[in-house]
């Protein structure tokens, strides 16, 4: 992820008064979460499992704290139980930025079979959980999508996911 993209995401989060960032480190988003950890504006929580990470965000968000969960499609799979509880059962807004693992621009180097699994399961999973999502594949759209996505998440009263594709996540000149 290049510096401009990181700065764009951080600025958009600040505009939305999101100051609690919850994550379980994963490769494509780690440059972003590392930068967030260094920024005193944010409280950064590294969770040991995505399930309670999503529950954490639900508790904070419902209690009025601006919060985002940063993960990948694997994290959404692990957090399915909590997403179903917080979303379908309670209708709690949980704003999620997720790397679109398995997108054809994914340059993480993990096995093709894993990537294919993510590519096949990611969007159907979100549909099954009735979680609205938007695929973001242009860096120029990022700021608007984050602001609109957060607003929609609050308005809908549901978890909402922005899926960041490889075109957004990976620099042209590096693998991170």
């Amino acid at each position, binding site marked *: 992820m290049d510096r401009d993209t990181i700065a764009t995401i951080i600025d958009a989060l600040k505009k939305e008064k999101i100051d609690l960032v919850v994550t379980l480190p994963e490769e494509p988003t780690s440059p972003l979460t590392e930068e967030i950890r260094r920024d005193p504006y944010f409280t950064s929580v590294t969770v040991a*499992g995505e399930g*309670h990470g999503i529950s954490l965000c639900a508790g904070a968000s419902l209690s009025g704290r601006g919060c985002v969960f940063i993960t990948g499609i694997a994290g959404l799979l692990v957090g399915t139980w909590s997403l179903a509880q917080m979303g379908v059962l309670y209708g709690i807004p949980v704003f999620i930025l997720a790397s679109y693992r398995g997108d054809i621009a994914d340059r993480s180097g993990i096995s093709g079979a894993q990537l294919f699994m993510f590519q096949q399961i990611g969007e159907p999973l979100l549909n099954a959980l009735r979680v609205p999502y938007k695929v973001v594949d242009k860096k120029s759209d990022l700021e608007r999508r984050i602001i609109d996505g957060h607003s929609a998440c609050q308005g809908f009263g549901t978890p909402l996911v922005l899926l960041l594709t490889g075109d957004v996540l990976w620099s042209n000149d590096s693998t991170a």
Partner: protein
Amino acid sequence: MVKRFDCLKLLASWMDEHMLTVTSRGGNAREWAHLRPGGANFHSLNLGTCLGFALGVSLAFPRRKVVAIDSDGSLLLDTSALVTVADVNPPNLLVLVFDNQAYAAMGATATARAADLQQMAQGAGIKKTGTIATLEDFAVTVKKAFDAQELAFYVIKVAPGRERVKVDSRFIHGRPMLENFVTAVRNHPDYRGGFTPAKD
């Protein structure tokens, strides 16, 4: 072993209107709703979601005491939450795990065998932990932790069964309960957000 209801009765007597609570399902929710009908209470979180949710509430209200009222079966589903709680170390969070060593009437949990949730919490890095087996100990030890500004975690070994209490079930489950919680937190002097529940 103690009766959960007796412990909760004591806990209710310590609470002020600005403190917040989060409960797991079953007897924890019913008995607590009966004892603390008002205030910011989020009830009946399903297995494995109570502790994480309570941590989120504690980060939204850092100047207020937040009490997680969890159970052995619920915590066992996601013990990795203990690691996150220890890592964040919120000084306003008190975690109480009422351990009846059973999934209601459906069989024993691992705490009836070799699993020790207090040691697991300690191993995860939570500094103040304990196991409570008498009401007197609850009254002294847990009250001290309740009054302190330090993360604390207690397993309370309780007898099976639940107190027969009158509770309006609509207000311990689902959307009506959530709307009560949101109303309470939106009126809270420390509330700084703008969440409005979706309307039908």
